[in-house]
């Protein structure tokens, strides 16, 4: 049996067959046929963002909590350019995203038509792959393939640009293609696994270094099993937080620029670094030549281009890290590593992580710890980008993979609120907390009304220091205290702003009992903004100065 459908209807049907149930986007002229078809779909819920970047980050939020590709939609021209930041962010953090954009009709491409921009050209360097669709038939191949590419190997964003006349072109459909799914990765080379196991067994001071790939590959429990069996002290990148519970006895927490001193010092002493799904990012390594300079390196990653890119490894294994860890586990010997464990304990005692004010809910650390005390491990924690992000990374007891949503690679201010909305849409049974700053929240503040419209269970904790805190910090420390363009002379009344957008708001500065007010605000279903003043002089410490070696940290 055949049916006659337009390109727009085919697109929507393929999304339905793909299992997509929520999409975020904004319509416009060049994508109206798809919106017309989407309006007829009973399976897909469309979330109307207020800026396309918001739609992109909502899709990211969905993808980050579910691990499955999520979809955002935008029209041509400014709709597409507004998506670019969210797409680039997904590329750097390896998030599976399928962005669908409308384009001017084929005959008008290249004429500088109204709302025409070279979306294909613009997205080449920020996508894993992209398509400019030239016929309705092609959609049957391109849409499933977009999902397959987004989800396979190292995940990433894929853009599909669809001219308006392709959306309206009607064709007969006989058979539907299978939905696009992740292709299995090639298995790890058993000989290399054996060598790696021997190297781990022979090491006296090994450290396991987990990256975001461990979360993406669903390998967190395998990584913890390996660490426990071989007694491997374990560090995590910003992207991997939650892979091993931060209070696990083997956890050394986050490494790098704002890691604890004992963490970076332990890395400095290690004789073997086992990098799993990590890419030796400069924020993690500091000065590369001085990073783990005494160590041999085993590097396991699904993306062969990451191997030997920054540091040359002694053993490089291209594999899905989950598969590689499961192969490694039986080959690695139990080992109590008493001397190394004692040395780590001594480093922790001598160079502990300082959390001043942790008991005072009106301090930055105290606020984060109080929020954590109101929640269990089911909660999802999103952040924006800045000082608040680093403090949360340092102080929040993350214990579960996919609990933690943060813009790591691109470091995009404005990520937090829409990503939290997307997370809440994908997992409505959970409480989603978004820590943000007064600089970051203003970069996508319009999505507060989307949060109100969708009535998502998102609690926005606004740490307000009336500054661009990390800029303020760097100017103070490295630019002779010449503060310029980092302090806001005017600030909005965020309580009124939130209320104006239709969501509840609490000013912790104005309440007698901040703990009780926080508890109440977090327990009340639906979106809420919780504002607290933060001292602009507070720094994120300890800190590796830009370009310095990780052992040379400054501050507490």
């Amino acid at each position, binding site marked *: 049996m055949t049916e006659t459908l337009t390109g727009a209807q085919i697109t929507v049907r393929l999304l339905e067959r793909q299992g997509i149930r929520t999409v975020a986007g904004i319509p416009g002229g060049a994508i109206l046929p798809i919106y017309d078809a989407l309006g007829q779909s009973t399976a897909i819920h469309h979330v109307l963002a207020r800026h396309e970047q918001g739609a992109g980050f909502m899709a990211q939020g969905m993808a980050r909590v579910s691990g499955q590709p999520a979809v955002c939609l935008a029209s041509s021209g400014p709709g597409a350019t507004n998506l670019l930041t969210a797409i680039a962010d997904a590329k750097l953090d390896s998030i599976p995203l399928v962005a669908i954009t409308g384009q001017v009709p084929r005959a008008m491409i290249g004429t500088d038509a109204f709302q025409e921009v070279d979306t294909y*050209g613009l997205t080449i*360097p920020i996508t*894993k792959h*992209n398509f*400019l669709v030239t016929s309705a038939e092609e959609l049957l191949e391109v849409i499933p393939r977009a999902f397959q*590419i987004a989800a396979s190997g190292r995940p990433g964003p894929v853009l599909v640009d669809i001219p308006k006349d392709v959306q309206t072109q009607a064709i007969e459909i006989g058979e539907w293609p299978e939905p696009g799914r992740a292709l299995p990765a090639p298995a790890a080379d058993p000989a290399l696994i054996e060598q790696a196991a021997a190297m781990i067994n022979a090491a006296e001071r090994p450290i396991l270094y987990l990256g975001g790939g461990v979360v993406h590959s669903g390998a967190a429990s395998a990584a913890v099993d390996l660490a426990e069996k071989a007694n491997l002290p374990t560090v995590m990148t910003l992207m991997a937080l939650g892979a091993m519970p931060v209070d696990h006895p083997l956890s050394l927490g986050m490494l790098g620029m704002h890691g604890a001193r004992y963490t970076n010092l332990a890395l400095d002493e290690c004789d073997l670094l086992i990098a799993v799904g990590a890419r030796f990012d400069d924020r993690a390594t500091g000065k590369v030549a001085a990073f783990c300079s005494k160590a041999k390196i085993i590097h396991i990653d699904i*993306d062969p*281009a990451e191997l030997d890119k920054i540091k040359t490894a002694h053993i490089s294994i291209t594999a899905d890290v989950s598969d590689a860890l499961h192969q490694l586990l039986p080959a690695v010997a139990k080992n109590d590593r008493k001397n190394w464990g004692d040395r780590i304990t001594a480093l922790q005692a001598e160079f502990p992580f300082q959390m001043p004010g942790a008991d005072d809910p009106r301090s930055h650390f105290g606020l984060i710890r109080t929020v954590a005390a109101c929640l269990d491990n089911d909660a999802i924690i999103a952040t924006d980008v800045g000082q608040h992000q680093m403090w949360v990374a340092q102080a929040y007891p993350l214990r579960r993979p996919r609990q933690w949503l943060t813009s790591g690679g691109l470091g995009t201010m404005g990520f937090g609120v829409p990503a939290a909305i997307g997370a809440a849409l994908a997992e409505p049974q959970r409480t989603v907390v978004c820590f943000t700053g007064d600089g970051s929240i203003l970069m996508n503040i319009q999505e507060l009304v989307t949060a109100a419209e969708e009535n998502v269970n998102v609690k926005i904790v606004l740490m307000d220091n009336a500054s661009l805190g990390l800029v303020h910090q760097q100017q103070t420390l490295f630019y002779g205290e010449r503060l310029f363009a980092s302090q806001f002379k005017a600030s909005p009344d965020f309580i009124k702003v939130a209320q104006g957008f239709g969501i509840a708001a609490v000013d912790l500065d104005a309440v007698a009992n901040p703990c009780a007010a926080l508890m109440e605000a977090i327990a009340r279903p639906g979106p809420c903004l919780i504002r607290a003043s933060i001292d602009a002089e507070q720094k994120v410490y300890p800190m590796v100065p830009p370009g310095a070696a990780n052992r040379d940290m400054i501050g507490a």
Partner: protein
Amino acid sequence: MNAINRNELDALNRAVLEIDVNNHPGVMSHVIGLFSRRTYNVEGILCLPVGDGRQSRIWLLVNEDQRLPQMIKQAQKLEDVIAVRRHNANHAVFSELESFFQA
């Protein structure tokens, strides 16, 4: 200014890359973009369809650089790249074209 004579050119270490790709608009941008974003100059480009025209072969003449192995890995990751082969600079594909490039 920035001009370098033929002898100097020859003195530089060069490499030739042979890249099999799917033949459709945009593939050249994908490949060349990998180089341009890293300010890695491509000295020579040749591209023609092969066989029935569904695939093309791109020949690139590039300077030897410590980044070249990473460039090859990045090129291999592209969806439309089927294979990348590396040759020495003395490969005939560019040297036989010299008569078309007299100043």
